[in-house]
């Protein structure tokens, strides 16, 4: 762990408590460091009141912590606080966009995604396409597990209304050229959405720098709590959009006949939000900034290379994803003769937690001709020891299955 403080594991009490020897499923959900838990506890113990409503001291304190967290996230993404909408997670962020934007699309219009999308960035668009009659197109994945950018340039054209792509694939680990894709979208007057669920917290993500219109991610994959996520949107666009949900806090004035809407971002936060979750997410940002995004990225890059080397060296095992170049630490692999579910069960017996299956990316697995894959995925608390354990457990699993 050359790039990170040697005692970083002490910040992750659940690792020890769960009895897991190697937690390698951070692409599904990351562990939560103690300062995040403490920040949420502090809200519940010190100012447990609703936000934006109470005219008393503790409600003011809760509102302040909630909005401070929004400001931290804005700085973290190089955005303004009013461009940060709290949601339940990346899935809700993307659904918000699909509901708010697609009703203006019609037959003849096109929305472009990629073949490597997580279902969260595919199904909302697909369902809206069926509802409003526009077409959904997918940028193909090449045999080297990167996007076919020639095809992207051909697909993104005058009919395109919106392009929504993953920043990093949760299966392949591929990092997509989102800046270039955002520029292609802008050139034809289309909106650009980036699903950054697998990149935020692993490297510096600069929403303005990418040049996209919207960016979505989940708190629980970036050391934050579950049930909180973010939608970044350019202010002018958020202001022009209709609300996604209606209720308290998102209104300005209500009569029995009609209502007017609150300013952004509150226009998109109907009802009492996940206050503790938002505060915890702010603490997660502080924690990540404290360690340093550059150090985290360097650590994960080195460890990913180590993992790819170790996994590929086991006879019969094939890494499904780019083995070199720009990528994140989600490493999928195939072991013919061993179904992913058997693999997960056998690895679990050795205290190694990995995910098996299609990882919410069925069309990608269909394209690859695989019913599923195993996947080891990293975060800053993993080290070479975890990978060595994984390799040992894989060899044992092969022996049990007589491979």
């Amino acid at each position, binding site marked *: 762990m050359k790039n990170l403080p040697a005692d970083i594991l002490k910040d992750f009490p659940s690792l020890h408590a769960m009895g897991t020897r190697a937690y390698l499923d951070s692409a599904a959900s990351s562990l939560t460091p103690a300062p995040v838990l403490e920040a949420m506890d502090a809200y519940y113990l010190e100012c447990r009141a609703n936000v934006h409503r109470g005219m008393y001291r503790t409600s003011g304190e809760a509102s302040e912590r909630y909005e401070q967290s929004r400001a931290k996230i804005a700085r973290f993404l190089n955005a303004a606080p009013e461009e940060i909408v709290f949601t339940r997670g990346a899935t809700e962020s993307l659904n918000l966009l699909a509901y708010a934007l697609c009703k203006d699309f019609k037959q003849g219009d096109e929305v472009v995604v990629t073949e490597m999308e997580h279902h969260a960035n595919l199904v909302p668009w697909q369902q809206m396409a069926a509802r409003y009659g526009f077409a959904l197109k997918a940028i193909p994945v090449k045999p080297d597990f990167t996007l076919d950018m020639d095809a992207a340039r051909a697909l993104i054209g005058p009919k395109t209304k919106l392009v929504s792509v993953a920043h990093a694939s949760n299966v392949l680990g591929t990092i997509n050229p989102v800046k270039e894709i955002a520029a292609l979208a802008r050139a034809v007057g289309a909106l650009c959405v980036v699903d950054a669920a697998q990149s935020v917290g692993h490297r510096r993500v600069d929403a303005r720098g990418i040049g996209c219109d919207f960016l979505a991610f989940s708190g629980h994959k970036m050391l934050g709590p579950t049930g909180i996520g973010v939608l970044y949107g350019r202010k002018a666009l958020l202001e022009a959009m209709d609300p996604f949900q209606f209720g308290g806090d998102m209104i300005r004035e209500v009569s029995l006949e009609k209502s007017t809407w609150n300013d952004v971002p509150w226009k998109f936060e109907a009802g009492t939000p996940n206050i503790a979750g938002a505060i915890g997410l702010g603490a997660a940002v502080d924690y990540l900034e404290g360690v340093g995004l550059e150090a985290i990225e360097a650590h994960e890059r080195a460890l990913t290379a180590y993992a790819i080397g170790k996994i590929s060296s086991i006879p019969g095992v094939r890494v499904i994803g780019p083995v070199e170049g720009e990528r994140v630490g989600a490493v999928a692999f195939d072991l013919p003769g061993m*179904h992913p579910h058997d693999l997960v069960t056998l690895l679990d017996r050795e205290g190694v937690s990995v995910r098996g299956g299609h990882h919410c990316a069925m069309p990608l697995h269909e394209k690859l001709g695989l019913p599923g894959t195993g996947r080891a995925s990293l975060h800053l608390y993993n080290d070479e020891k975890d990978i060595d354990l994984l390799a040992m457990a894989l060899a044992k699993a092969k022996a*049990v299955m*007589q491979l």
Partner: protein
Amino acid sequence: MEDELYRENILDHYKHPRNAGRLEHATLSARELNPTCGDSIDLTLKLDACDRVEDVKFEGRGCAVSMASVSLLTERIKGRPLAEVMALGERDILALLGIEVGPMRMKCAMLSLRTLKTALDSKD
């Protein structure tokens, strides 16, 4: 290596499934999926004039538990009267497998039964 879940019998059925394939002129058929694993079973059955399972075949992809389960089930029902086949339940599947199946793997073990029930339900 000794292993309870992955016993010789289970691995044998997984690696050498019995009654694999698809019947051309099936009386009953069904396809069931297990969305969390992406497993699938396509089951085809042929009943004779006396409502006996004259033949049965399956195509499937899945883990050792789900594939051994369906392979064993096809052996169990071949040649048996429909009434007996319809009475089969979870306990019978577990008895066929002869292993401890934990809650995490029950869905895998029962995909075969679920497919069989769907096929039987398609009979008028």
